[in-house]
């Protein structure tokens, strides 16, 4: 699909490590890692590319014209843009440095200092070249497009200090203590600038010094320059006490005190205490008789307080101005003037979100640790969560800022089991499986004043999908009319009089109900299909039809090795998940009109009462026909450019549960007796494949693993229009000397 244009990436790594024992009580460590990468992609291969590929690559749109030139359909078709529309080169350098000093002034008393420093800088150089279609005679159809060069520089500096001290001691060989205290800081600084200049004199030599400042139509265009800096820091103090009595009873207590530059001084600091208890039952004397079978049994319980900034904004509590150059819309002396305005309201009272977690767990090891596993259950309360404020009168003039006013409760569990053994004839194998589940209930969300059912509502779960209940597609006008007449009879039963206009029971969602359209079920029995007031007090015929939250995440890992051969298969999946898409990638016919519509093979399964015949001329100039036969038992309704058949409903709710063979690998390690002579300590050959196969009931258009992603063309969640996971075959040789 991307076989136009160039797409390449080169990466170089270098790592150095140094450590020195300065004295018997001090050790110094230093390491450095350097990564350089060069990425070269077509400049039109941007974020929207996958979004539009469905809409812009219809089967009837050629890539090349009859003369063999790329055909761009005046910029609408993507292939030519990829091949000739310019390139984007990204040159990125990352340096990670780490220095550490450990001092042991007394036996078992350590003072540790660690400094991490990261510089990440990247330079972009992007050309955008005009692409033109050609006329039949081969001459260019000059649309006077502009060429431009964009260069940018981006630098991120990150410094992190960790300084802490710990002391381990025992009393009477029974009470074991470890105490620790320290502090930690993080600081990030960012600098960015870019320049765009227009009118390249020579497309082969894109340089800022070689631009004309002219657009394709000959008009002046001044270069544009932008730049900004940002900074952010956090600071934390922490302490921890570990105590155990003969390894049987374990206690850990933590206390943190954190401050962030994102919040104002009086709301900046937060305390986070946590504690956990453990009981090693298998170490008890009463367990001795069972110990040969159950050699490990440990009960754990913990309660913790965590804080979370939950913002990507650098300065969420500072109000700023929007200022621009030549951004005004009212021309003054033939030029755009500068315009500026004050940005939205902010709350100086913003602060950390508080997360409280209760956890209980059990670890076990049976049959000499051949069968190990653990089970955990937790409740997590998120309080002071950031959310929209209560609705304020329009007279405020602007949208009120978000506040720490929401609350959530997440409950979940996790199970992990491993069986590991070696058979008497030397086959080593292991089976490992884990499964986890969590769901989140909304406790408070004051921002949803009207009770909008698509918004968060207290008492409901995150990820709910609301919709109508579908009866099916009407195969004929008679079937549709019978359905509408039944609705009318129900209306009369409820109200005592017939509806003013007959057969309008579904008119809330559209008009002209005919063969090939959806018949919706009258859930609330009022003789009309509606969404009522769009809140849960009066949801009309809307109910919760599914939930997008992935449930029962599982992974299965199988390994085996025998005489130098090793095999591994890793499966992952989701046990339960619903997905609903309103994007044209799913529906084919887009509700917003013909131009975003998509024509994949699956979309041929649409309702048509009669054969559709396409007459065309084949390569030899003979008339030919392509027939799409009548399809009354179709999956999709008749293709219309409106919502009425595409309303959220049970029929098109997708089951996104899946199991995927994520990785399968076969390797062979040469015996030491052979490799040892060559001075090689290990030599392994392997074949590996990622994403080998997937079992799912989801529509073939989507990939179940990243179905929640993608941008939204009229949907509430991601529309799943991301690029699917690639199946990757690789083989290799790893040598350690």
């Amino acid at each position: 699909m991307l076989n136009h244009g160039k797409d390449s990436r080169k990466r170089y790594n270098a790592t150095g490590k140094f450590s020195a024992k300065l004295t018997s009580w001090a050790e110094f460590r230093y390491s450095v890692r350097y990564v350089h990468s060069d990425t070269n992609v077509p400049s039109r291969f941007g974020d929207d590319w996958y979004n539009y590929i469905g809409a812009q690559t219809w089967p009837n749109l050629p890539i090349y014209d009859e003369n063999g030139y790329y055909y761009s359909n005046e910029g609408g078709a993507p292939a030519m843009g990829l091949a000739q529309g310019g390139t984007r080169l990204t040159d990125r350098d990352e340096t990670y440095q780490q220095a550490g000093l450990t001092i042991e002034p007394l036996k078992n008393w350590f003072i540790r200092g660690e400094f991490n420093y990261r510089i990440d800088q990247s330079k972009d150089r992007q050309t955008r070249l005009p692409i033109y279609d050609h006329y039949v005679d081969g001459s260019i159809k000059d649309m006077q497009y502009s060429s431009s060069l964009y260069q940018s520089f981006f630098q991120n500096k990150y410094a992190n200090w960790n300084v802490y001290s710990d002391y381990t001691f025992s009393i009477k060989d029974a009470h074991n203590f470890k105490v620790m205290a320290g502090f930690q800081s993080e600081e990030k600084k960012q600098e960015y600038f870019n320049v765009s200049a227009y009118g390249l004199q020579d497309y082969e030599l894109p340089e800022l010094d070689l631009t004309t400042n002219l657009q394709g139509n000959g008009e002046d265009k001044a270069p544009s320059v932008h730049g900004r800096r940002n900074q952010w820091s956090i600071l934390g103090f922490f302490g921890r006490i570990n105590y155990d009595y003969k390894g049987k009873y374990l206690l850990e207590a933590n206390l943190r005190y954190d401050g962030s530059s994102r919040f104002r001084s009086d709301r900046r600091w937060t305390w986070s205490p946590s504690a956990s208890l453990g009981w090693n039952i298998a170490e008890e004397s009463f367990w001795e008789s069972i110990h040969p079978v159950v050699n490990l049994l440990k009960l754990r319980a913990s309660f913790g307080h965590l804080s979370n900034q939950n913002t990507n904004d650098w300065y969420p509590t500072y109000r700023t101005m929007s200022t621009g150059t030549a951004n005004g819309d009212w021309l003054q002396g033939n030029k755009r003037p500068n315009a500026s305005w004050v940005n939205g309201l902010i709350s100086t009272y913003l602060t950390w979100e508080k997360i409280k977690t209760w956890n209980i767990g059990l670890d076990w090891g049976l049959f000499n640790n051949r069968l190990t596993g653990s089970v955990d259950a937790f409740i997590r309360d998120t309080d002071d969560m950031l959310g929209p404020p209560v609705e304020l009168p329009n007279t405020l003039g602007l949208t009120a800022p978000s506040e720490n006013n929401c609350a959530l409760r997440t409950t979940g569990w996790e199970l992990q089991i491993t069986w590991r053994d070696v058979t008497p004839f030397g086959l080593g194998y292991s089976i490992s499986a884990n499964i986890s589940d969590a769901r989140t209930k909304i406790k408070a969300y004051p921002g949803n004043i009207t009770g909008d059912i698509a918004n968060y509502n207290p008492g409901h779960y995150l990820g709910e999908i609301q919709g109508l209940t579908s009866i099916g597609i009407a195969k004929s006008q008679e079937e549709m009319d019978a359905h509408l007449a039944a609705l009318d009879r129900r209306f009369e039963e409820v109200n005592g009089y017939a509806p003013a206009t007959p057969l309008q029971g579904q008119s809330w969602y559209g008009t002209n109900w005919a063969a090939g359209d959806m018949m919706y079920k009258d859930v609330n029995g009022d003789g009309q299909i509606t969404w009522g007031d769009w809140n849960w007090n009066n949801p009309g015929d809307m109910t919760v039809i599914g939930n997008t939250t992935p449930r029962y995440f599982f992974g299965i890992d199988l390994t085996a090795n025998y005489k130098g051969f090793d095999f591994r298969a890793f499966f992952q999946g989701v046990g339960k998940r619903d997905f609903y898409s309103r994007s044209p990638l799913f529906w084919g016919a887009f509700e917003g009109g013909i131009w975003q519509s998509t024509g994949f093979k699956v979309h041929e399964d649409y309702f048509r009462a009669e054969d559709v015949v396409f007459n065309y001329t084949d390569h030899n100039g003979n008339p030919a026909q392509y027939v799409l036969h009548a399809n009354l038992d179709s999956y999709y309704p008749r293709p219309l450019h409106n919502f009425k058949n595409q309303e959220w409903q049970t029929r098109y709710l997708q089951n996104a549960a899946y199991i995927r063979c994520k990785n399968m690998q076969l390797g062979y390690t040469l015996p030491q007796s052979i490799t040892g002579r060559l001075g090689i300590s290990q030599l392994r050959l392997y074949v590996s494949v990622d994403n080998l196969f997937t079992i799912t009931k989801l529509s073939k258009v989507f990939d179940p693993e990243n179905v929640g992603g993608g941008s939204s063309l009229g949907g509430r969640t991601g529309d799943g229009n991301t690029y699917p996971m690639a199946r990757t075959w690789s083989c290799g040789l790893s040598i350690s000397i």
Partner: protein
Amino acid sequence: MKPNKILGFGISCVLGLAATSCSDFLEKTPMSQIPPEQYYSSASQIDAILMDNYPNILPGHGSWYGYFEGDDGTDNQVRTGGCWSQYTTDLWRSNNEAGEWYFSRIYYLNFAFSNILTRYGEKLDGQDNTISGDLPLVQHYIGELYFLRAYHYFTKLKTFCDFPIILNPFTTIGRSFPTLPQGSPATKWHARFSMTSTRPSTLCNSQISTQHASTETRHCCLNPV
């Protein structure tokens, strides 16, 4: 370097960092954006505020019907994409939040006033003015801002008759939302309107051939509606 020196250096680094940390380390203000308290301090900045506001009272060009897009959602025409919540059987429903109900432009102007007038001072002749730039120009711009606010309120008056008038904007939100300013009823409104409108006529300088065009603007400034 001897270990003792390294140790000493390390400890002094740590202590030095810790000492400065708590006070300054977490005080990070925006580096590349102007806070409103520092803006509104020169004639050209007030000009930029005006340039943001004028296009909102001038007829614009929509992307489908051009100038005539102003008729969208009226009895003349629907808009592309439809107005299906507005046209119902036997009934034309008006919006209950967008359009005429917006107070945002009035907010922007009030916010500008709250910053500019403190800098300009109480005295009408500009004796206490601290806004940089040519004084007659500053006065003229302030006059234009008055005109713009009066114009917005006049439009509201035409549409709704009685309408709350708000002259003081919210700035930042603290622990909880303070009570919103209540709108005054129309009777007070007229009084207030004529009071404020004396000010633009004093401030607007007919001698300045304003680059903001229009004779109409000046006319409105000098002869408030």
